[in-house]
């Protein structure tokens, strides 16, 4: 049986970068980019991946959207796609990406491949949430999301691995992140965590994808959660940050958690959920004598531990809790996905960032820590 692959190309992704616009979201910016002579890079990137995939075209059924949203690229690369939906040529918007994702899901694709940037990933996430396994071909200006492969060829290789063993390839959850492009254009970076999607592992950590018994992230996450819970002290308030690894701690304690927010625990019970910075500061004020600890994880591929996806943990929050009371947890997969680049901090307070630099202990299993470098 052929594997059904869905393809969405965001035809305008990657336009802003080469003309220095830091992204191409928003109609005005898109127009400005065109005026500045911007050429979209996503078709080119898509073709880099499709050229590799043409080698396995007898094993796949490619579903895509019309024209520049996938059909053009597929035909250019010698593939015969099944085209669904409709678009207004040259005038596609994020709504088209969402519609395409929903239509391809309805068409029953096993894997959804899309080319674009963080905005595209967000649109796909909005449409299909965590229901579909996805692979991103990096085509955008700014890529913060872990759902993208390192380059188009690697994306194609992942698709091939998926086709070779459908339903068996090991999956992990990867972040969908986006920064507010309006702020970036004013030289302020504020990336938000929007959610998670399922992607295949980019690099095999063992022979697993072929030999079975892959130690999947959930296994490591469970072990890490056991360690964190084992070491929890009474009467300390734990501020548990966003992430699937931190969520595993909450799940093991059988407490409700906010996947993208900050929750507070005391004596293994939830005392408040989804706190913003102000609410955390209020909690400090109410509990002046209580020691606090922060439990955080790292953003895959990027390596941010403070300043992305957990801005609620502001400089004043971190200072009150104290650097020594930060418990960093991450799976070994996530650490290796950084390709030996350090963890990053960007709290907005350069002095604090400097203090956080150096080496940090990362809990990676039960009674097991890795030492890793932190850089501002």
């Amino acid at each position, binding site marked *: 049986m052929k594997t059904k692959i869905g393809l969405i190309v965001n035809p305008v992704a990657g336009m802003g970068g080469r003309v220095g616009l830091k992204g191409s979201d928003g109609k005005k910016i898109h127009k400005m980019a065109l005026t500045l002579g911007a050429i979209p890079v996503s078709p080119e990137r898509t073709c880099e991946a499709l050229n590799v995939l043409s080698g396995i075209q007898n094993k796949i059924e490619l579903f895509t959207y019309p024209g520049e949203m996938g059909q053009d690229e597929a035909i250019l690369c010698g593939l015969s796609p099944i085209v669904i939906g409709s678009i207004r040529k040259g005038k596609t918007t994020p709504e088209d990406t969402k519609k395409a994702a929903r239509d391809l899901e309805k068409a029953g694709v096993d894997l959804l491949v899309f080319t674009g940037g963080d905005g595209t990933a967000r649109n796909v996430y909005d449409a299909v949430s965590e229901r579909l396994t996805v692979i991103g071909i990096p085509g955008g200006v700014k890529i913060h999301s872990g759902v993208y492969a390192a380059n188009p060829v690697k994306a194609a290789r992942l698709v091939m691995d998926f086709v070779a063993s459908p339903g068996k390839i090991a999956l992990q959850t990867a972040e969908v992140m986006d920064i507010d492009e309006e702020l970036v254009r004013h030289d302020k970076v504020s990336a938000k965590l929007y959610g998670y999607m399922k992607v295949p592992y980019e690099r095999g950590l063992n022979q697993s994808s072929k*030999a079975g*018994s892959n130690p999947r992230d959930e296994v490591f996450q469970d072990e890490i959660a056991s360690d964190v819970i084992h070491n929890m002290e009474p009467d300390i308030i734990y501020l548990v940050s966003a992430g699937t690894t931190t969520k595993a701690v909450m799940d093991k304690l059988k407490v409700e958690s906010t996947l993208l927010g900050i929750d507070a625990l005391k004596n293994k019970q939830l005392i408040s959920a989804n706190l913003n910075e102000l609410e955390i500061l209020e909690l400090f004020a109410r509990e002046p004598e209580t020691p606090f600890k922060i439990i955080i994880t790292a953003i895959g591929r990027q390596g941010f531990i403070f300043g992305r996806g957990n801005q609620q943990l502001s400089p004043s929050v971190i200072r009150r809790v104290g650097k020594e009371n930060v418990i960093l947890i991450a799976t070994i997969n996530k650490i290796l996905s950084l390709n030996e680049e350090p963890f990053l901090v960007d709290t907005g307070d350069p002095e604090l960032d400097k203090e956080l630099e150096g080496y940090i202990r990362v809990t990676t299993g039960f*009674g097991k820590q890795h030492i890793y470098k932190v850089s501002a």
Partner: protein
Amino acid sequence: MKNIKLKKYHAPKYDEPLIMEMGVKGQRGIMIPQVDKEIENTVGTLEDLIPAKAQRKKAPALPEIDQYHTLMHYLRLSQMTLGMETGIDIGEGTCTMKYSPKVNEELVRSPQMTDVHPLQPEKTLQGILEIAYDLRNYLKAISGMDEFSLQTGGGAHATYINACVTRKYFQDRGELGTRNEVITTQFTHPCNAATPSTAGFKVIILPHKNGYPDLDGLKSIVSERTAAIHMTNPEDTGLYNPLVAEFTKVVHDAGGLCFYDQANANGIMGVARAREAGFDACHFNLHKTFSSPHGCEGPAAGAYGCTEALAAYLPVPVVTRLSDAYHLDFDRPKSIGKVRSFFGNLPAVLRAYAWIRSMGPKGIKTAAEISILNNQYLEHLLSQIDGISYPYAEGKPRFEQIRYSMEKLKEETGFGSHEIQNRIVDFGIQSYWLSHHPYVVPEPFTPEPCETYSKEDIEYWATAIEQACKEARETPEVIESAPHNQAIHQIKDFSQAEDADRWAITWRAYKKKYKK
């Protein structure tokens, strides 16, 4: 690369049943003679000798099969799996597969060895005790340690012994409550994380910087909580850490102990010693470095050595010599106790003894040098193959092995180290070892051409890799469906390996799950 012709090879294939399914009722391999009446009258019947509780009420359900067919069955299996000494096993890096002289097999099979029983009185065991005692002296000279135990059954076991010795040492000093962390490095064998963990320590893994363990990282974490560091050198990357003495100093300054996992000693034996690098303890794999056959081809032995300060904690018995006689010293009140039955794996001890005696100090150093030379020649050949590289410390020499990467080949062809591994066994050589977990080096493979391989062996092996990499580009269908000449073809569906309901590791489980 030289023009080497790869051999036409095809594995024999027998449709062998499981041994448990073989045999005919009443068939016997050996007819055991009845006990002589006179003996029975003197010592009693068999039933008298075996305690009632240990006697079976019913005979075990073993296959009833004669000697000839048993031998035939296992010979066939060994042929189907390429057996021993039939292929070049350079690929089994980190395993130190070398040719072990057959004369040593004659020694371990001689009656002087096979008729020795561990429950004999000590004074009748003087020969084998002398061998153990002398081997211990040789290992002391090679490592610079003050005392050795030959008790452990392998390398990871020796590592575990170190964790136990460390625990006891700090317990004695009243520091165990605080000193509960053992540090290891990313490219040290994972048993160095696992065994301290088993012994109750927390484990901290150091990152590497350009392939070398990160000294600043170590400095950032040593404290009054540091119990020990477990590290190897050269690591699995083949890189020798030139700052090793600084590592041991940093740990000593913090009050911790330093253990040297010497599984990778083949390139340094006779060249550099654990003592001078500042270690308090170390081990050797007698079954690898000292030429006792390795793994399934022969039982293992880890020799564990330490300085005087730790000697009191060694497992019992320790072989000692007092007034011209050898003894098994059990009277060591601070010992961590017994770690293995009787005296350890004596055949491995005897082979290592014989090998060291035949090589001599110069021979051992030469073996190390040739193993490094061999590795550099293999590196020279493999570096010419498009798609193969190895990361870190460019320009720095590697020792006895290298962890290579096929990442580029994978990116360009879709075939990585696993697919190439499936193919090279078609050329009549052993499959290769990839990497310990986790795969820090992507698409890894780790060959180790020990000193006993010839130049031609190395060239043949490199040619097999070259041919497979060429096929990945030119005839991908050959790689995709490899192996072609093996007894078992490519297994596509590994799902049973992930499904506990379908595992059948024992005959009983097999009957329960499949013969309902």
